[in-house]
């Protein structure tokens, strides 16, 4: 697959390819913050005992879609945020791990199982949310047959876990998962970054599409944009490779799989891949970090996380971004030998050295001057400045026809904007408003 637009700078802090195992933490959490559009209905009370696999909350939009506990113990706390919106449910690990047992599926039985039974099994086991549906990237609608399911081997961040680390020892589960997908759709697309391929060995044969090593070429939204030929394909689904492994493992063993692979990136440091329990506390994964740093689950398209909170179901990486808010003398005219920029206005554009990114704006918000930097970098050929102008003037029809829903919210337009306009935030708000309008 070809792609010319994307983030071309080399980034510092690439994680080490080795793997370490973390012991079980004291508490784990199930976060709601990374689940799209959910209206949670809580199924447990504080101090309730839970097993691994006990449903904690479900989605009011479809009560059969459940989210389950990734550990055995008691519900320690149910944390609410603004407007009493559920933020996360914290579970204190106690006693020996006790699993809720679900039906298992043998590789031979895959061909005979009916789709509704498969869906029910995945919903009960808390793994249905692995499937996400375009264009809103909402939890997939089980009643639909998607025209295509895109399996993405790479995560949301440039330094998300390497697929080789995720797939290590899990190859049978992955292959089994692919067979399960065959029950849900006619077309399965497996995409991988070119740079990931050489360590993939056997999985390589399953990769149907290679994408260039250019963020966000491996984002399923971008893959879909490049592949789709009909309007129907806008309703395709996507699933990440590690979630597909979870699905495969769950169906093979009949228990909820709890181990996940994480990466942590921080300035000037290479950290190995970490295998830990789902929902581990941010603090134990992040380790020590400088004061005032911002911790996110994806520097371009993640969410900021509190050090005291727990990682969500979809989070696989933590970026620790330093805060360099120290104001610089004559910053607007310095040569900038080490400043990261997609423009050519810094000397750094002449060198290919890895650049450090911090969590600062590097300027102040100004009016849009129509410079076209956002359109130049957009991986799905949008004109973000035109779309936000349509959105700001409440012209949703224009915004949609310009391709608003093709936006994969990769954040690059906002990254590049010299006027520091919150383009991604505006686009995301526009998409969310349209979604709510349709409900």
């Amino acid at each position, binding site marked *: 697959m070809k792609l010319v637009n994307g983030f071309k700078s080399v980034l510092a802090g690439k994680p080490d390819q080795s793997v370490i195992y973390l012991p079980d933490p004291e508490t784990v959490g199930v976060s709601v913050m990374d689940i799209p559009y959910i209206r949670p209905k809580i199924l447990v009370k504080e101090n309730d005992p839970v097993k691994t696999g006990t449903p904690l909350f479900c989605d009011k939009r479809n009560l059969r879609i459940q989210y389950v506990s990734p550990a055995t113990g008691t519900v320690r706390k149910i944390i609410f945020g603004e407007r009493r919106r559920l933020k996360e449910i914290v579970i204190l690990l106690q006693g020996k791990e006790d699993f809720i047992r679900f039906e298992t599926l043998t590789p031979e039985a895959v061909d005979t199982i009916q789709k509704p039974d498969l869906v029910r099994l995945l919903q009960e086991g808390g793994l249905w949310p692995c499937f996400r549906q375009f264009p809103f990237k909402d939890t997939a609608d089980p009643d639909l047959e998607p025209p295509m399911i895109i399996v993405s081997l790479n995560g949301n961040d440039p330094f998300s876990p390497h697929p080789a680390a995720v797939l290590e020892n899990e190859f049978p589960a992955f292959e089994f998962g692919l067979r399960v997908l065959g029950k849900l759709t006619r077309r399965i697309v497996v995409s991988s970054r070119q740079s990931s391929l050489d360590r993939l060995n056997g999985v390589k044969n399953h990769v149907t599409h290679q994408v260039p090593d250019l963020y966000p070429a491996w984002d399923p939204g971008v893959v879909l944009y490049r592949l789709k030929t009909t309007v129907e394909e806008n309703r395709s689904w996507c699933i990440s490779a590690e979630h597909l492994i979870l699905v495969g493992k769950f169906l093979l063993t009949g228990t909820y799989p709890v181990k996940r692979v994480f990466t942590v990136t921080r300035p000037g440091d290479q950290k190995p891949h970490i295998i830990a329990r789902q929902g581990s506390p941010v603090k134990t994964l992040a380790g020590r970090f400088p004061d005032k740093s911002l911790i996110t689950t994806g520097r371009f*398209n993640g969410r900021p996380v509190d050090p005291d909170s727990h990682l969500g179901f979809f989070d696989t990486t933590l970026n620790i971004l330093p805060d360099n808010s120290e*104001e610089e003398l004559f*910053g607007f005219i310095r040569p900038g030998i080490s400043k990261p920029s997609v423009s050519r206005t810094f000397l750094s554009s002449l060198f290919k050295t890895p650049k450090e990114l911090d969590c600062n704006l590097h*300027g102040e918000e100004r009016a849009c001057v129509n410079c076209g930097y956002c359109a130049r970098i957009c991986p799905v050929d949008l004109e973000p400045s035109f779309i936000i102008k349509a959105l700001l003037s409440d012209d949703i029809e224009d915004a949609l026809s*310009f391709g608003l829903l093709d936006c994969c919210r990769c954040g690059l337009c906002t*990254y590049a904007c*010299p006027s520091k306009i919150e383009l*991604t935030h505006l686009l*995301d708000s526009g998409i969310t408003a349209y979604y709510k309008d349709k409900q």
Partner: protein
Amino acid sequence: MSSLKKRFESTQKHFSGSGKLKVLGPLFEAIKTVFFLPSPRTRHQPFVRDSLDLKRFMSFVLLSLLPVLFFGIYNTGLQAGLAGGKTYTVSQAFLTGLTYVLPILIVTYAVGFFWEILFAFVRGHEISEGLLVTGLLFPLTLPPTIPLWQVALGISFGVVVGKELFGGTGRNVLNPALTGRAFLFFSYPLTMSGNVWIAGKASVDGVSGATALAVTAPQGQSITAALTDSGFTLSNLFFGFVPGSIGETSALCCLLGAAFLILTRVANFRVIIGGIAGLVLTALVISFIPGDGGSWMKAGPLYHLCAGGFLFGITFMATDPVSGPGTDPARWIFGFLIGFLTVTIRVANPAFVEGAMLSILFMNVFAPLLDHMVMKYKVSKRIPNV
């Protein structure tokens, strides 16, 4: 550096909150951010941002204008010397030029910033960087002999009517600097056309102060020969040792600025290349039309390119992203039509010897329409997703 910072921090209280000088808050912020680039934390996704900001973006336009500015000052002095029958050294010419250009520059920035600050204060927003560029572009389009009160009037019209009435930076339809110049051109034609292009000329008789574009050949002579006779050889026009607006005379300096803007990607190369292509093609085609050999019709593309203000306009005025189109195909068309219209006005309209200003302003008005058509086309190529 840290003492300067302390100084800002200690005076900040007077300009914010309940300070006595709270009214001047935007001015204080503007001055402070010139010295210290602010860099607050990101609040929304993505959490990392590019190092380029609008201040630097605009500063690079100023940098690209420096060759034009310095040569313009030098040439103003040089032409004044020639008109007075003297040959100045480089430094003499530069200093003489400075006595004409500096007052124009100072008046432009003073009056321009007055309006900018007034509007920033009334609207309660930050002072935008756009005026730095407008304030340097505007004087460069004027003849050195222009009265200073007209300079003040012109920049006022450019900033207030050309920009602020539309809502300020980012919302103006027309290029503010050119709007100001057009206002002066039509309101005070006596000081903006004819023999006004040489500073200090009044003292000597017998030297024409007209620009190359005003030259027409007598019966039987070709336009190029007539231009050479008047001192407008192609090399003079290219290097810029001719009378004209302060900044427009040197094609070389404009090309240097264009190269800098294109290499740093501050200006969009499509406008510049498209414009030059439009001018060259149109001039070529028109030169094959049979007709009077003594008019600019027969001058050919090179003379059209180097004479007048076209290169200055296409490099610094047409590439203004706000008043130009926002899509790439529209930028090509926009540039091409500016080149086409410039030549057309020059050869076909006896009322205006120069067409660059009018063609850019005209295309500014059409830029949204070009964008509209390009977006329509792009939408038709997309797979609908609603």
